[in-house]
């Protein structure tokens, strides 16, 4: 019975990108900020660095857009913002997620946990 790590990875795979989108919903954030915040949630990431391939993919698929901004102290930072495409994807995920979660809870018996 040793599924845990594989299970966590599988659960993360379809959901983590929407956690990134949700973090960007109300404000722009720079890479280190995003990655540190997600990295603090141990269920969501294995290490901060593993988030960069995801961020790169989100840029390429146009769900986020980035701009370089000067920082008050230190080097310029790349800020991530949600695009309209990203907003739509997040809204879609929200409704899908609720249905999905409810179905799993119902079948697995985790409704009241």
């Amino acid at each position, binding site marked *: 019975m040793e599924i845990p790590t594989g299970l966590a990875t599988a659960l993360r*795979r*379809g959901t983590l*990108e929407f956690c990134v989108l949700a973090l960007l919903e109300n404000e722009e954030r*720079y*890479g*280190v900020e995003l*990655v540190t915040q997600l*990295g603090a949630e141990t269920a969501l990431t*294995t*290490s*901060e*660095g*593993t988030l*960069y*391939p*995801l*961020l*790169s*993919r989100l840029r*390429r*698929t146009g*769900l986020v857009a980035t701009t370089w901004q000067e*920082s008050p*102290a*230190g*080097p310029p*930072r*790349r800020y991530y913002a949600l695009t309209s495409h990203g907003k739509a994807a997040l809204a879609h995920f929200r409704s899908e997620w609720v249905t999905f979660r409810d179905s799993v809870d119902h079948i697995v018996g985790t409704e009241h946990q």
Partner: protein
Amino acid sequence: MTYSTDPLDRLVEDYLAEVARATAALPAGQREDLIADLREHITVARADLDPPTQAGIRTILDRLGEPAAIAEEARQGEPVTAASSTYSPAPPTFSQSAAPQRSSPSTPALILGVVLVLIVILVGACAVTLFADSPDDDALPVINSRTSQTAPAPR
């Protein structure tokens, strides 16, 4: 104070070189993107270290994690999202490893196909001779003459 920036830079460069090695199979653009992202992360995080120490740099790199794990994420993450499947030029990364797998099942399939075609031809040939034999007894002499033309030896 004997610390210079050199050993710190070397730590960073060694780490990024390891990432570069681990991601050798990625398409060049993607790999450069990833390394640039990690470099930027390190630069930004390093600026927050009050005195930039080796221990501080090590912590930043440790939190980024194993280059192999990052490479694995980059490799696995690609084909999963629906959006990336519209990028048909992207998958060629995997075509190198997938190509032999794809061609090896097709060879047996080809052989199977050829065998099937041969069987169909044989069955067809049998059917032709059977139908030719049974349906009309009146035509027997004709058939005999035909068989004698094609295969005179057996009779």
